[in-house]
Structures are given as structure tokens and as C-alpha cells.
């Protein structure tokens, strides 16, 4: 599995433009505006988390280049190990990118001496991490199963999720559904909500790993 890890570390170099964009966006946020707000920081945090979640999925495409998956599956790895490595690498990419993003943010805040609510920044990081894990859990099995065709599916899924959200929002407005009760409940039971979310995310992540393993084991090259 170490070899697979080294390969991904070598391939991740292909994403250097992405990391450069993060730094440029962060610099623009800090030095293009007179005020640094929690909202603008949230944008950087989400951008880094979402994009870094897509990197491991795209690494599968780099593995497939030159019909490389056939060759990789013939090397002394088990298919299960390939899947586990991809998910581990995903977590490392998200954590690594988020940490790098945090350093950029922290330096910017110190230079600008901005008044930031650190608790809110922490919450944004948590939500962004959960979203990134969800993206990987959803797209990794699709990527392994359908290869390049998944790019079209990603667009369809994003539009579908957006559409569902829009419809639900419209229904909620028309029927005067009051979500303030739900918000109050969350505020009153923060620990419970965090633990419940963590359990759900872990279960989804584990299910995604299992599905990816089954797909790869059954796949013929």
C-alpha cells in the first residue's frame, strides 16, 4: 500500500495550480477588501475543503490514464488496499489542505488585525469537513465504477440536489413551515447533534468504502 501512497503523492503535484489559486483567492480576500469578515473566511474554508475533496476522486482518473488501472491491479497490491489507500489519502488531502488554508487565514488575520469570531470559524471548518467527507463518500464509488463518465453524473447530481433544495424551499415558504424550532433544538443540544452527525458521517463513509471495494473486486480489466 505504501507504493500506492507514494504514487498518489507524486500525482498530486498535478494539482499545484489548484493550491496556487487557493493562495491567490485568500490574498485577494484579505488585501482586496478593507474588512475581513467571518463570511469571507467561510468562503475560503469551503472552497479549500470542497476542492480538496475532489482531488482524490480525480486521482482515480490519473490512475486510469494510459489504461493504468489494468497495470496497477496486476502489481502486488490487493484491490481492497487500493480502495483503502484512496480513502485514507482523501482524508489526508482534506486535513492537509484545510491546515494549509488555516495557516494562510491565520497569517492574514494577524497582518490585518481583523476581529474574527474564532468559534464561528471552528464551526465553519467542522461543517466544511463534514461536507467534504460526504462528497468523497458519494463520488468515490461512482468514480471507481463509471470512470470518466462520472463527470457528467457529478453535474447531474449537483443540479438534482440543487433542484431538490429549491423545491423544498419553495414548499416550505408556501406552507409556512417554521424551522426556528429545529434551530432552537440544535442550539440547545449541540453535543448531541455533533455526536449524531459524526456517527452518521462515519457510517456513510464506511458504507462508501465497502461499496467501492465491492465494485473494484468485481471489476474486470
Amino acid at each position, binding site marked *: 500500500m*505504501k*507504493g500506492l*501512497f*507514494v*504514487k498518489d503523492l*507524486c*500525482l498530486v503535484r*498535478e494539482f499545484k495550480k489548484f493550491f496556487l489559486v487557493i493562495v491567490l483567492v485568500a490574498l485577494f480576500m484579505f488585501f482586496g477588501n478593507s474588512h475581513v469578515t467571518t463570511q469571507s473566511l467561510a468562503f475560503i474554508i469551503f472552497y479549500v475543503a470542497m476542492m480538496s475533496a475532489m482531488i482524490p476522486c480525480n486521482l482515480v482518473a*490519473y*490512475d486510469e*490514464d*494510459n*489504461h*493504468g488501472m*489494468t*497495470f496497477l*491491479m*496486476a*502489481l*502486488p*497490491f490487493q484491490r481492497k488496499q487500493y480502495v483503502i489507500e484512496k480513502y485514507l489519502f482523501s482524508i489526508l488531502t482534506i486535513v492537509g489542505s484545510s491546515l494549509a488554508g488555516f495557516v494562510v487565514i491565520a497569517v492574514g488575520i494577524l497582518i490585518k488585525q481583523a476581529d474574527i469570531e474564532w468559534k464561528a470559524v471552528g464551526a465553519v471548518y467542522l461543517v466544511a469537513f463534514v461536507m467534504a467527507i460526504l462528497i468523497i463518500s458519494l463520488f468515490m464509488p461512482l468514480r471507481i465504477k463509471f470512470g470518466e463518465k462520472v463527470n457528467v453524473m457529478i453535474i447531474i447530481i449537483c443540479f438534482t440536489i440543487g433542484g431538490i433544495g429549491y423545491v423544498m424551499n419553495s414548499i416550505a415558504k408556501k406552507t409556512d413551515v417554521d424551522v426556528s424550532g429545529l434551530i432552537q433544538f440544535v442550539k440547545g443540544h449541540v453535543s448531541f447533534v455533533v455526536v449524531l452527525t459524526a456517527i452518521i458521517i462515519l457510517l456513510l463513509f464506511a458504507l462508501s468504502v465497502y461499496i467501492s471495494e465491492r465494485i473494484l473486486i468485481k471489476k*474486470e*480489466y
Partner: protein
Amino acid sequence: MLVDMNNIEKVYTKFHLKCNLQVKENGITGLIGQNGAGKSTTFKAILNLISVDAGAIQVFGKDYKNLSRDDRENIGIVLSESGFSNYLCINDVVKIMKSTYRRFDEAGFIQRCEKFRLPMKDKIKTFSTGMKAKLKILVAISHDADLLILDEPTAGLDVVARDGILDILREYMLVENRGILISSHIATDLEGLCDDIYLIDDGNIILHEDTDVLLNEYGLIKAGEDTYKNLDKRHILSIKKESYGYSCLTNQKQFYMENYPDTVIEKTGIDEVIYMTVKGEKL
């Protein structure tokens, strides 16, 4: 026995592979066939890249699905049209191989890359077809494997480069108990290299013979109509109608030379044997 494929069958919608094949220690076994004949499918079956519908495959005397990590490290692989990602460079390949194969010979690999003038820092996507083929071979022989599975390793190489690769394989075989299974659609590549040759056509092994026998005992009889009528056909494998009469493939050239001294009997190369076996009419 390094590889033993026993009554293997793989069924696709438009293709059916039926294969018996053995690779012995201290030998180079060739698999020759046209494009689409089933060479790559055979290799993929051995490497457990596809499931088989019937039969048994043993590698190093074990079921091919139950090979240990050590066993799998003991196989060097070249697959046609497949290799490391084009976005990697040879320096990356060195790091990956070092982390994957415990017996990877880093110094030897780098030395060979330099000998073949392969750039260490350029991405593989910038390599010519020949350079990519050389890299694949060098990777396969870099980790002291006892078995090499080489699918079309010389594809895309010019004559000089092909000879260079074949020399590397001969040198590799100087160590005892090693074996190679190699495929090619260029018969002449394998004539001077292989100890025995399998001929595959449309998914079926239609001939298996020692290379020496193929080259020394097979012959092509050029018979006119009258000669053909009187020809003892017990040792004729296949015939083909020609303008002058018949071409007849035999595996008993000496018999016909002694008994039909006035008949033209040509020495055959593997290409002629393939042609007559595939296109000729069996008696």
C-alpha cells in the same frame, strides 16, 4: 512449473477463449497470434485481472487467486497498452517501485535507463512509443522476479531497439529457475528467443511446439497437381490451393525430402507455419 493453465475458458459475447498453456522453469514460452486472437485475454487471466468461466490456473504451483504478496512480487509484468500513468516521470517510478517491491534494484534500474537514454525527469507522456516500451521492460526486470509475463513487449520498437530488448531478456534468463511467457504478433521476434511456442487463433490454441522442431522439422511442400495426387498425406498438417497446385505444411520435412527428392520442399519460418495453420485447410 511456473504457470499451468488447464482447460481455461472465458466467454465474452463475441469471443470465446479456450486455453491450455504451460510455462516451465528455465524456459521462454512464446504466445503468437494475430491482433484479437486472445493473447492479452490469456495474460489477464493469469494475472487475475479477469475472472475465468472454467478451468484452473496455477502460478508457482498455487491457485492464481491465492498468491501471497511474495509470489506477486516474484512476477514481472509488461502489459500491452497499459503502464504507469503518463503524468509520472521515471524518478517517480523509482520511488513507487522502491516502496512496492522489496527486491527492487534501484541502481541497476537507473543504470539501464541511462543506457537506453530514457530521461529521468520528463513525464512519461512526452516519451515516444519506443521509449515507453523500453521503460515497461526495464520496470518488469528490475525486481528480481522469477517469472516474467510480457504481453507485446516489443510493440512499437524499431529493429535495433527490439534486438536490445531481446538481449536483455536473454541476459535475464542466465539466472537459474527463471521463466518468461512472452507474446508478440511479430513471429521473428520470438523465433530466436523462445524454447517453445503456442499459436493462438480466435481464442483457441491451435499449435504448440518446440521452436527447434518448428524451425527444423516443419516444411512447406510445393506440389503440382500430379505430385499432390501421389503424395503420402499422413504427415501433412494443412494444405492451401495455389496457382501451381498445392502448398502443404508438414511436420516431417525429412520424410518427404527422402521419399520425394524431386519435389520442392522449403524450410519454414514461424510466419509460414502460422499462415498455413490459420489459413490452410486441415486434412
